[in-house]
């Protein structure tokens, strides 16, 4: 190896390990199978959303309506399954999630409005719509606890909670899409140089629309997870999800400029955020201060992104 340098992924892995070691030594109850499992389970919903969010940011798009989309999908899912049946509830919830991404695609691709503006409108409107469907209350669901309650035996050794399995599967799928396929490569091109991509015959609108469709599916998956884990749909379902996923993607190395980074970085960032969050709770930090910490982490992520962009012009896509 001519020049040894720490890659982005290695740096994030080191940060994660350092945090885990530090909190294990300083925070009671942090280092234990049940707490560590708990951290990863809590990170799973964010992780599922963060995967397609990575794809979007790589192509210079953004979706800040996902938290509200989860709320709407959850509301429709739970209300319909209580009124009709679980199957009809699931189908309706999926339809709601895809409806949201179809509206986003229509406004971004056909009306050519910036995705941050379109999804800001969605962030407000879809949570409102969720409250309309729920009539402002929380509604409980029966018979949908599999994801939240069960564990899958892995290699006969580990019992892995279902949400973690779902997160890992999403991660693998998106790693594959972005690393190995023509579609993934074209999304990196769109993010790095949109005009060059267009001149090379890549259809930007179609590719971006596909990414929002994938986000719609991810929103539905996240909905089924969140509903199963909490047992309810409420006006606050999925709250802060867009913000957590975005922080993870930026901290994970994609940055707002697009064209670089990957889901492995995002995954590590999701875990870093979850570890910090958990440690703050265990140490009894007041919840107001937890919010301050989360916001500061996002700011740190953006600053880190700016610095690495200036310093390192040779960062390539991939690892």
């Amino acid at each position, binding site marked *: 190896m001519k020049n040894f340098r720490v890659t982005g992924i290695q740096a994030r892995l080191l940060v994660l390990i350092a945090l885990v070691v530090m909190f294990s030594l300083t925070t009671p109850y942090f280092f234990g199978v049940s707490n560590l499992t708990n951290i990863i389970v809590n990170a799973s919903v964010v992780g599922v959303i963060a995967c397609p969010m990575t794809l979007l940011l790589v192509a210079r798009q953004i979706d800040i309506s996902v938290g509200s989309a989860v709320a709407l999908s959850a509301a429709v899912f739970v209300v319909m399954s209580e009124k009709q049946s679980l199957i009809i509830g699931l189908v309706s919830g999926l339809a709601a999630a895809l409806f949201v991404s179809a509206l986003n695609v229509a406004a971004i691709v056909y009306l050519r409005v910036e995705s941050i503006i379109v999804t800001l409108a969605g962030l407000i409107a879809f949570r409102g719509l969720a409250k309309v469907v729920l009539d402002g209350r929380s509604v409980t669901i029966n018979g949908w606890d599999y994801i939240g309650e069960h564990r899958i035996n892995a290699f006969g050794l580990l019992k892995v909670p279902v949400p973690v399995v779902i997160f890992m599967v999403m991660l693998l799928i998106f790693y594959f899409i972005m690393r190995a396929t023509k579609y993934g490569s074209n999304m990196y091109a769109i993010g790095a140089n949109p005009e060059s991509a267009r*001149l090379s*015959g890549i259809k930007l609108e179609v590719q971006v629309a596909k990414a929002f469709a994938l986000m719609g599916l991810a929103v539905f998956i996240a909905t089924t997870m969140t509903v199963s884990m909490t047992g309810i749909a409420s006006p606050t379902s999925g709250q802060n999800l867009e913000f957590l996923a975005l922080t993870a993607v930026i901290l994970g190395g994609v940055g707002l400029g697009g064209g670089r980074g990957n889901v492995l970085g995002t995954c590590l960032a999701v875990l870093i955020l979850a570890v910090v969050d958990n440690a703050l709770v265990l140490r009894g930090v007041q919840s107001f201060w937890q919010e301050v910490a989360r916001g500061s982490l996002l700011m740190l992520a953006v600053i880190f992104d700016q610095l690495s962009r200036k310093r390192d012009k040779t*960062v390539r896509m991939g690892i």
Partner: protein
Amino acid sequence: MSAKNVTLKVENLNKNYGSVVALSNVSFEILKGEVVALVGDNGAGKSTLVKCVAGSVFPSSGSIYLDGEKVNFHTPGQARDAGIETVYQQLALVDTFNISENLFLGKEVKRTGLSRLFGILDRKEMRRQALQAIQEFNATFPDVNATVETMSGGQRQIVAMTRGAFWGKSLLLLDEPTAALGVQESKSVLEVIERFRSQNQMSLLIISHNLEHVWQVCDRILVLRGGNLVANLVKKDVTKSDVVSHITGAYSK
């Protein structure tokens, strides 16, 4: 000359933007394997003419023939499919991609069999073909795996030209290939153009306002002034100052 040897034929081409005449009755031919320079002052109509041939502007009237067949390009994609590649002044490269990724941008090679269904890239094959193309044009890069953002302006120009030559079957349009380059860089770009000429069956049309640069590589010079083709000169019959006087309008018979 037989019609078979004519790569591009432009006949009575006109382009108006409202009442502004950008091109007026322009006619010329480019022979197979010929390197033709298109020169003229700013606003002479060079870009409009090239855009008509490349398919990004549709002419008001007139005809374009490629390899003897009449063509009507409404999009750059149609021109590319027909065998005309364009190297734009801004190069249309993706900075974070390496040479082979840029060479196959938008035309990626997919693996065969079941993998094709998922659109899986065949990076190995693309890399192999890219290296072959680089070798063919004898272009040299310090590191063929480096991303183009780490390359100099001249190297980037050569990457874009290699892509054009790789895909172009009939005609390669070069828009100001040396405009943004220093002396040494221009020299290496011109060397690659020389190699295109000696190895390729492809014709080249080079747009430039730097007569000095195109002079050494071209066979023929077209001079545009005010939308009119004022001169069609064979290089060996004229001097540089003849061409300059055509460009400025000082030439008189």
